């Protein structure tokens, strides 16, 4: 322990901060704080407009700062706890785009006074007089937008966290708002609250794993800094060797929970189903991206030196994730749960790319995350539009014949499903190729086995998606009360961007692949 203690500074010193590098995060967190003030002081009738406008302006500004300023400030800053390097910038930029699209879908009002997705009063007992009174009085949970901004801030920090403590703080900052958002659905309140509670309990549990693992790694390396941990592994003297593997495993469990890898996936279907649908889309795309960003950094910067000890275990998790996600998606009857299980399977596919341990693997994973996120946000935005008698028609049987009644909506959804299935000329195919190719070339036999399992799992999930297409196009509509609402401009933009991105990343993926390839080197 003495060796560890000597590495600590003797007194607290103010750390140097490269403000240009972290400016995108500051913009977002500032907007979140202002959003809280808006909630306190702005008149109720104007809050929705102010909050949405504020969030969008901040996100766009943050993106602009990122692209114009931060790209030239690739550095490790804030005392080594944040690494603003290529992967961090790419993932942050993608996150901001997801956040913009997410806020656009969350702002959907369908002509009402407040966001259609959110309950007028989260604290009211479902079905109680207080709830209906709140609705009549024009209450609205417009705090959903600042909450989202806090989550985005946490995510931006998560993908750049170069230190286990920072990573943990980021994890909590991104998770807590999401737990709350999950419980705010306007309809099926009980389901939403149940989902929120489950998500919170299991999330807290996984945070504990992460923290315990971080503590063990600190004990091993004498520092929570990923670079120091890497140095400790490379100069291993065997003193605390017993702490390393348990530490890595526990930290990985905490992170794998967030991406929904089997066997840490059980929250996914419930949370996806219960959360307000636009939140589900945002959460599915952005949380997955942020968590994989953290996994990449941990695996490639921090504990790569010991990868032979844990790689096989994670490979087993990847295989399990693909198989379980694919097989269970076959039995789903609710579209949100179906997409949840499909997201589990996708997490497995992405893990295959992570385990390649090569820069091309980083490229592939980042491309996959971008492609998957765009398609996912658009898909959930469409799910949000399909209604039956005022509530969302999420049962699969209600989607029968949708292609006849709403050819455009169903057509875009079919396109997104084809992308999920990995059909060529969609982003899904390029992404799978980008993630699987490094696994074959650098992953050895385990990599090839994972890819074979991956393509077979893809075939299973493809069956699910094609069955859905069959349902939309080849089946006669059952009830006439299922309609797709006309989206507002905001939702239309989100869906259009998602669909266009899906096509562009499928047909001309060159530029984005090139970009991802150029920035896939971590600062060590």
């Amino acid at each position, binding site marked *: 322990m003495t060796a560890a203690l000597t590495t600590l500074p003797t007194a607290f010193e103010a750390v140097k901060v490269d403000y240009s590098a972290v400016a995108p995060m500051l913009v977002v967190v500032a907007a979140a704080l202002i959003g809280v003030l808006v909630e306190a002081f702005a008149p109720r009738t104007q809050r929705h407009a102010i909050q949405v406008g504020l969030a969008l302006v901040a996100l766009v500004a943050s993106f602009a700062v990122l692209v114009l300023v931060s790209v030239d400030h690739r550095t490790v800053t804030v005392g080594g706890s944040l690494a603003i390097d290529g992967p961090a910038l790419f993932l942050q930029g993608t996150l901001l785009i997801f956040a913009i699209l997410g806020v656009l879908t969350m702002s959907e009002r369908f002509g009402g006074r407040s966001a259609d997705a959110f309950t007028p009063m989260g604290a009211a007992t479902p079905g109680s007089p207080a709830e209906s009174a709140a609705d009549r009085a024009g209450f609205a949970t417009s705090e959903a937008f600042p909450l989202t901004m806090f989550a985005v801030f946490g995510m931006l920090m998560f993908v750049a966290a170069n230190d286990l403590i920072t990573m943990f703080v980021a994890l909590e900052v991104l998770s807590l708002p999401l737990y709350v958002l999950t419980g705010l659905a306007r309809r099926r309140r009980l389901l939403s609250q149940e989902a929120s509670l489950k998500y919170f309990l299991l999330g807290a549990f996984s945070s504990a794993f992460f923290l315990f693992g971080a503590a063990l790694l600190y004990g091993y390396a004498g520092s929570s800094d990923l670079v120091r941990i890497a140095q400790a592994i490379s100069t291993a003297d065997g003193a605390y060797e017993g702490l390393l593997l348990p530490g890595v495993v526990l930290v990985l469990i905490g992170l794998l929970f967030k991406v929904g890898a089997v066997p840490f996936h059980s929250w996914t279907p419930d949370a996806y189903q219960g959360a307000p649908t636009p939140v589900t889309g945002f959460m599915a795309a952005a949380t997955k991206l942020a968590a994989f960003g953290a996994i990449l950094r941990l695996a490639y910067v921090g504990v790569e030196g010991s990868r032979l000890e844990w790689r096989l275990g994670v490979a087993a998790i990847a295989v399990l994730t693909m198989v379980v996600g694919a097989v269970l998606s076959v039995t789903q009857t609710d579209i949100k749960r179906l997409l949840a299980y499909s997201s589990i399977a996708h997490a497995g596919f992405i893990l295959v790319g992570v385990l390649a341990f090569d820069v091309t693997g980083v490229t592939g994973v980042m491309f996959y995350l971008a492609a998957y996120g765009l398609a996912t946000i658009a898909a959930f935005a469409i799910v949000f539009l399909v209604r039956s008698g005022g509530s969302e028609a999420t049962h699969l049987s209600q989607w029968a014949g949708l292609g006849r009644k709403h050819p455009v909506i169903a057509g875009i959804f079919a396109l997104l499903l084809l992308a999920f299935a990995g059909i060529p000329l969609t982003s899904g195919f390029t992404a799978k190729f980008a993630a699987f190719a490094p696994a074959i070339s650098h992953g050895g036999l385990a990599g090839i086995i994972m890819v074979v399992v991956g393509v077979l799992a893809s075939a299973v999930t493809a069956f699910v998606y*094609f069955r859905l297409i069959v349902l939309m196009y080849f089946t006669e509509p059952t009830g006439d009360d299922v309609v797709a609402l006309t989206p507002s401009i905001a939702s239309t933009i989100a869906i259009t961007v998602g669909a266009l991105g899906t096509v562009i990343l499928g047909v001309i993926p060159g530029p984005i692949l090139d970009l991802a390839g150029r920035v896939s080197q971590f600062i060590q």
Partner: protein
Amino acid sequence: MSGLPLLTLMLVVPLVGAAVIWLLPNASSRLSKPIALGVSLLTLALALLAWARFDSGSSDRYQLTETHSWIPQFGVSYALGVDGIALSLIVMAAILTPICLLAAWNDLGEDADPKREKTYFALMLVLLTFMVGVFAARDVFLFYVFFEAMLIPVYFLIGLFGGPRRQYAAVKFILFSLVGGLIMLVAVIALYFQGPGGEQGFLYEALEGAVGGSTATQRWLFLGFFIAFAIKAPMWPVHTWLPDAASESRPATAVLLVGVLDKVGTFGMLRFCLGFFPEASKWATPVVLTLAVISVIYGALLAIGSRDIMRLIAFTSISHFGFIVMGIFAMTTTAGGGSALYMINHGFSTAGLFLLAGFLISRHGSQRIADYGGWQRVTPVLAGTFLVSGLSSLALPGLSSYVSEFLVLAGTFQRYKWVAAIATIGIVLAALYILLTYQRVFTGPRPEFAADRTPRDLGVREKVVVAPIIASFLLLGFFPKPVLDLVNPAVEQTLKIVGVTDPAPSHPTNVATGSDK
């Protein structure tokens, strides 16, 4: 080559046509048929122009080439180019598409939903693009893209416009194809890393004869490709999707599916399996030939036992695909050239059978053979043309399939005498299934119809559909030289890569030129 990028044009023209049809206002959906036909004829003209530009004497294997960088990060180029085999298949696809469009003219009835009508004909044109693309690709990745993408229009053509069990058939079709395709995807990715790599590492020229890796790796890669192609072709025991898909789809779809798309399987075996993995191909030959012979016999037996006329034709195709695969893996120039020719001939004879069966079914509304009998007395022209198509299918001398079947058997006999001997049983069985079907459907006493419901014989449109098909039987039967001249150099080049020479001839090997028959 100079001037027009012909192959790209052939990809773009049908696609533009499809877009135009889709964008038609519903009120003028009637126009979708003539537009589709016109576009397909324009594509045919381009295909013939490509044929005219193609120089089969040239030492360049791939001609009419176009190469542009597409995804350099993956080593992918947008590269087109054809050898003789690919060109002949493209021309066949371009000839069959207008024929099929014309045959499908009234598929949807007079008062069809305008949206459905537009979708039907637009999908056919999209399919034409993918059919051209899959044969014209000169980059493995691009090939794979077309290989998978062409499933989508077929899926919708079966699923939206097929028979009563269309959903089952469509899903079965797509699942079989996807499983094969995804296994192939693994092999495609791995192939790149065994090849020379680089920004054009997926080009055929870069890979042919240049795939490295251990013997075991090559064999695995071979299997990855072969399984996909065997499903596509289809061979026993992965053929079960074909009868369902063919019997549940419209005759025109069935023609394009069985006649053209399934050729991708045999085409791929010849080009990829033999061209990229020569050693592994030799290693696998005994098994492949066994499967091929089983397909020949088993397909024929199933055809004889079939009660449904569309399924019957599908089963005959399985038998014929067995012959084609046999010819490819016999690895003699005679058999290889025969197989390449067989692909063309089979396309036309299957088209004849499917379309005429379709005309028959449209008159009586049943696919069951037992529901017919004596129709020769009602529809003599239909009966006669069906018989000719059937005779071509059973390889009657003078009709096209005879030449190719003979070449395949003779070429196989040079190296594998027993295989060829057993496969000849398939010819006997072919006579059975064709003639028995003709007997059951067309001979016998004249069936009774209500006075005003007597079926009419082939109309003008239907005759126009059948005429070019029958003409192809005779033309390719008596004068196969142009096509053989086109395909033989490509076959020879492939076999040179494989590194086999024909067994010492006990008779002249120039049988393959075909001119002396």
